[in-house]
């Protein structure tokens, strides 16, 4: 009797203690490579505000789990998604942030991907860039002094590397998502008639007015993929993200197509690696070759989340507090969309800023505007092309077919 009373007393004290603490905001994120940084930030926030962040971090299963939770009513207060097309996917679930005080502290260009009809429905999380990453030491040792800007120059560099016994590329072709990010960069300036107007370009693709098989610039995309595969070692279809980062870090290969998010993994493998960006060739037009630069990873606040105000308070803290402003540049070591944020001490971030300052073209991640599901759908078709499953004509037909099906199903 005495023992059970004691247990009851302890239980009541614990409950009372818990009730005295602040609210708990449920958070569902991806990018598990940032789990440590997420946890550190949550611990700091709890110290400063008393509110707790209940974090769940996933990767491959993320879209499935998010969908299941949104449907079943177990809505996370805060979740993550891409920008652009995902605005439409989650439109029934996101809260309009246009009138929140912290939105004015975001860099305006970062808000383009999350603004629909003048309403800001997402919070830009990271600003990222991707292009060909090269190992500076490998290039120096191979005697390459001029960085390539066209397909022909890139091929010449590959020949030179191979003559020195170095494998030019780690293709990454085993991951379906490396294909779109590599391929669409070669199409980024768009056919001349569109003058860089991505909205119209995507709208024409959606309506069927424009088809991939009628875009003659797709030839450059295939040429680039052929080149990477030719100089990608003897098992090009088996190279995945880890293989790319490890091989580049150790100097086994000279170039990979990845983004600044890979830098952390590369530096962990080899802290002395010196890496930089090459522009992505657009056929043989040197002036158009550039890097892909945009804010795509987006944080969204659920409209029907139970702790919506607490979630907004957290975002406000993330944008205005000293720790919050420094979190992305110093701890995640990537570029932050907050105005006045310091530049991260990361080689690729520095290189991105330098290239943009020099006037190198920086293209938005326009392929994120394709209807949801197409990134993977088209990526797998391109992967089939690289594996030799389909030739160029059949690949173009498959791209058109996949696009038409998913666009029709999305509206």
């Amino acid at each position: 009797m005495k023992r059970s009373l004691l247990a009851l007393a302890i239980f009541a004290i614990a409950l009372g203690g818990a009730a005295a603490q602040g609210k708990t905001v449920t958070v569902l994120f991806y990018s598990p490579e940032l789990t440590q940084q997420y946890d550190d930030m949550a611990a700091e926030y709890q110290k400063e505000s008393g509110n707790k962040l209940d974090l769940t971090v996933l990767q491959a299963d993320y879209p499935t789990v998010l969908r299941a939770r949104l449907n079943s009513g177990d809505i996370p207060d805060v979740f993550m998604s891409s920008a652009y097309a995902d605005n439409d996917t989650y439109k029934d679930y996101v809260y309009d942030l246009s009138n929140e005080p912290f939105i004015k502290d975001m860099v305006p260009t970062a808000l383009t991907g999350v603004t629909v009809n003048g309403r800001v429905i997402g919070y830009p999380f990271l600003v990222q860039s991707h292009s060909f990453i090269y190992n500076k030491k490998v290039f120096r040792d191979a005697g390459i002094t001029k960085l390539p800007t066209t397909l022909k120059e890139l091929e010449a560099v590959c020949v030179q590397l191979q003559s020195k016994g170095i494998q030019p590329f780690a293709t990454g072709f085993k991951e379906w998502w490396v294909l779109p990010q590599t391929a669409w960069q070669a199409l980024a300036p768009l056919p001349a008639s569109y003058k860089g107007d991505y909205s119209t370009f995507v709208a024409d693709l959606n309506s069927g007015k424009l088809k991939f098989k009628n875009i003659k610039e797709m030839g450059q995309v295939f040429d680039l993929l052929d080149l990477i595969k030719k100089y990608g070692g003897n098992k090009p279809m088996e190279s995945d993200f880890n293989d790319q980062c490890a091989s580049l870090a150790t100097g086994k290969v000279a170039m990979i197509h990845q983004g600044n998010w890979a830098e952390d993994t590369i530096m962990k493998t080899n802290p002395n690696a010196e890496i930089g960006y090459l522009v992505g060739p657009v056929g043989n037009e040197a002036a158009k070759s550039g890097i892909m630069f945009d804010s795509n990873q987006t944080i969204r606040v659920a409209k029907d989340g139970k702790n919506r105000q607490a979630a907004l308070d957290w975002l406000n803290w993330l944008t205005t507090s000293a720790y919050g402003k420094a979190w992305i540049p110093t701890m995640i070591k990537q570029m932050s969309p907050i105005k006045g944020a310091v530049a991260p001490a990361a080689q690729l971030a520095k290189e991105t800023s330098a290239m943009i300052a020099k006037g190198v073209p920086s293209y938005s991640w326009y392929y994120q505007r394709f209807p949801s599901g197409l990134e993977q759908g088209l990526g797998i078709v391109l992967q089939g092309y690289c594996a030799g499953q389909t030739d160029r004509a059949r690949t173009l037909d498959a791209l058109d077919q996949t696009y038409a099906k998913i666009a029709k199903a999305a509206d």
Partner: protein
Amino acid sequence: MTVLGKRIARGVEFAALTLPAVAAIVVVVMVPFGMSVVNSFMKWNGLDKKPVFIGLANYVELFTDDPNLIAALIFTLFFTVAMVVLTNVIALLLALALNQPLRGRNLLRAAFYVPNIISLIVIGYIWRFIFSKGFDSMYAATGFAPLNLSWLGDPKLAFASTVFVSVWQAVGFYLVIYIAGLQTIPYDIVEAATLDGAGPIRRFFDVTLPLLMPSVTVAVFYSLSNALKTFDVIFSLTYGGPGTATTSIALDIYKTAFSDSRFGYGMAKSVVLFLLILVVGLLQIGFFKKREVES
């Protein structure tokens, strides 16, 4: 008690005893299946609050306008034939061998069974590592040419890899079925055949195999329906890649629902898969049952 009263009492007793199991199956299997069939007539992306009724449009599209599904169907059929034949032949040969009085027989039986206990997803990831990084190191050490081929990257070799890993994992289970079947064959019949002058091959095909047919029926049915539904191995080994070279029907359904966000269409495909397995299974059982022999 009257005869009718007894009958009713027995019926009630029957119902009461089977009710828990029936309830569980109805709630967990029948109701979701019914919902699947209903949703297969709808268009839903998994997030909209209300699915839209579109009648038979999903089924029409499935049969007339889906090259990915046709490719998945062809792959699944080839994969199933390879899997069923290889698994059963290898399991039967191993069962015959491991039914002999050998030393270390139990150890060998356990060794062949262990892969069956490990989850298919884990096996897929382990073999994925072996086929790529493992083979690279082994080739660097030995120079054995087949190790340098791209077992997961070349579409044709990837097919062989998925069949190999599936068979490797499945054999243990069918080995158990066949050993049990072999042990029900009364030794005197086999002895009689030997005395009549039948050699080992004749003994096997005319005595052992007909008496083993019940086990064969069960094993072939089970391996057939598992092979048609294959998903885990392919998901972790190749994710249907490269491209769509190793995408099975089940993986195609998964991608349709979760990657293309077309849940109604995915459900229509799974209803068709169910009917396919049902028809094939019934045909197969009917065919094999006729060949069973009672000893």
